[in-house]
């Protein structure tokens, strides 16, 4: 693969064209800051993030993000791959998301129904879109952008996502340049 292709393929795979593009091209944001070693996530945090991820990518006839353990994956990525600025946005974002749930449904995110979760995250997704539209260079990434992108990355590169929601062929063995495609056929995982 040539370089341009490498970059665009990663960007496409991860669905990141605006915010987080730098993150996905380079793995992490700013190289200047030290890893926030003190950052820690509890099992409750992971359970919370599992539900956020499951709302974004729910179980259908194929496994959802929770079955793919995306919550735990998110914590590893935030701990190891985010700079402190983005770690802060993510951590505060978990709080903001829960607050938004309380405000809307008078209950925390873990206590509302899957339907309510979906309703809430659709709103937050819209809010993120608006934020991105007006975002200036110096503005940070929206927390939901981080959560959504980590969910998509984690899910589609998980065993469940890659092999069940997509078609995963680790060793293709050949290249067929043009094959027929019909609507509904799954995309290749890599």
């Amino acid at each position, binding site marked *: 693969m040539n370089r341009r292709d490498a970059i665009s393929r990663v960007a496409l795979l991860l*669905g990141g064209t605006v915010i987080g593009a730098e993150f996905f091209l380079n793995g992490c944001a700013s190289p200047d800051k030290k890893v926030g070693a003190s950052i820690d996530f509890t099992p409750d945090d992971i359970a919370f993030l599992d539900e956020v991820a499951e709302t974004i990518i*729910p179980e259908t006839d194929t496994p959802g993000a929770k079955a793919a353990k995306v919550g735990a994956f998110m914590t590893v990525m935030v701990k190891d791959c985010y700079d402190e600025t983005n770690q802060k946005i993510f951590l505060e974002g978990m709080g903001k998301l829960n607050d938004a749930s309380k405000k809307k449904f008078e209950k925390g995110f873990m206590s509302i129904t899957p339907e309510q979760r979906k309703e809430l995250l659709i709103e937050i997704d819209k809010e993120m879109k608006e934020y991105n539209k007006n975002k200036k260079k110096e503005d940070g990434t929206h927390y939901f952008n981080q959560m959504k992108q980590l969910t998509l990355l984690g899910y589609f590169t998980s065993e469940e996502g890659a092999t069940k929601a997509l078609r995963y062929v680790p060793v293709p063995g050949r*290249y067929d*340049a043009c094959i027929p495609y019909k609507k509904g056929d799954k995309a290749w995982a890599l």
Partner: protein
Amino acid sequence: MPGDSLNVHLNNKSISQNTYDAIVVGSGISGGWAAKELCEKGLKTLVLERGRNVEHIKDYYAGTEKHPWELPHHGKITQQDKTESPIQSKCYAYDEVSKKFFVKDSEHPYNQVKRFDWIRGYQVGGRSLLWGRQSYRWSDIDFEANAKDGFGVDWPIRYKDIAPWYSYVEKFAGINGNKDGLPQLPDGEFLPPMEMNCLEKHVAAQMKSKFKDRVMIIGRSANHTARVGDRGPCQYRNKCQQGCPFGGYFSSNSATLPAAAKTGHLTLRPNSIVLELLYDKDRKRATGVRILDAETNKTEEFYAKVIFLNASTLGTTFILLNSVSDAFPNGFGNSSGQVGHNLMDHHYGVGANGIYEGFEDQYYYGRRPNGIYIPRFRNISKATKRSDYVRGFGYQGGASRGRPGNGNGIGVELKEYLTEPGVWRMGIGSWGEHLPYYENKVTLNRNKKDKFGLPTLDIDCEFKENEMAMRKDMMASAAEILEAAGLKNVKTYDSNPAPGFCIHEMGTARMGKDPKTSVLNKFNQMHDVKNVYITDGSCMTSSACQNPSLTYMALTARACDHAVNELKKGNL
């Protein structure tokens, strides 16, 4: 002279133990070839590699066999990687598995007088494990360029001098490609070509009908589309940079070093940092090299009749500049004063991409580790002459049905949307020629030392007006091509990478006809010291716009042939 005083203390036995017919410094793409050729011609050859050993296949199994979910970060890199290696980690080929083949910047400092991204792999095989594998011949348009427009000095060779050696190395290396019959990009000895996918075929056909001056061909790469000896074939995993357990692409580790070892004449010594060349000023010959053992921190000397420097452009330059004596106060074989000067890279990272509405009923299978190529079409004839810049560029690129970007919303609808392939997209990015400027240079900084206590390099290199003017055309023509082919939403980009980042550094010990203005003669032999040959990128007199490794291979094989003949004649 350095070395002589030490020799006195060595008994004859240890001198003879450390004496070979030939020494090759470096085991990357050109050093591997030097090792193979010299060994096969019967010379007892010592290959000195500054990094650790990497055995073919055995040492690749540190991730490349894993599925993405078996890697802690699913292939992505960490903040720690960025802290330890802020430069290497920006490289397109750097991932959670391939990073084992990159140096840690924190361990190998250099000084950027101007920003220069120096990408390195210190191990047996060097960057041949990591390379982009694109393999293109040069033509006389390239070899005559300096003479015609006056930048740099004239190449001492022409296409006819190197053509048989291109054939020779292609047959062994295993280069896939199509015979396209283009004067600016001569055909070679190819394995079966890879195939364009349906959008690429469409764009190629559109270009043919809409442009008289430019064509699109399938890329030519060192991936083995058929078995080459015991190597390959390529399995279309597209994980080359992690090391291929199938031997699906050419590297020193897969191909040349095993061939050299098979002769019984090879001694490979990893962890051997060459500090300097030893010189006998009466005979005007190099006698050997002094190394620092990276594990024991002890120095040692090795002797040979002929020495090949293949330590990479800047690595070789370091050795030359660090080898000072009464005879060569400004660096080894540097009576011309050109060593370290005329540093070039390619300038790239500019192009365009767009989407195509159609071919929804078409897809592909496998991950082709190669793309398309649009060979140079500027300044190759009177009709294509530009008034705003000299030389030219080529495009690499490809089309794919990426997974859809910009997934809207959340939930079942998003999931379904993201599990199907998205629209067809195509992008092309350009690789442009960088002129040889004397003032683009690398020098030795004896005040700043690395962890071994060795001097470091000051790198002072930039792109200038000609490159900048070319970049405007590189961007505009990319959009023009894609729009002419019917792509929509065509967007241009210029990521403006620093010199070095294209990983095609070259030119700091250039070939030339005149010993006063060049370091090497037409056989890559030092003008000043006849038993030293340099065949890595530092020998290059100009940069052309093609990926250069194939040319290094051909020049190396040719120089080895010359060296062995000269040895036989008693001239070295």
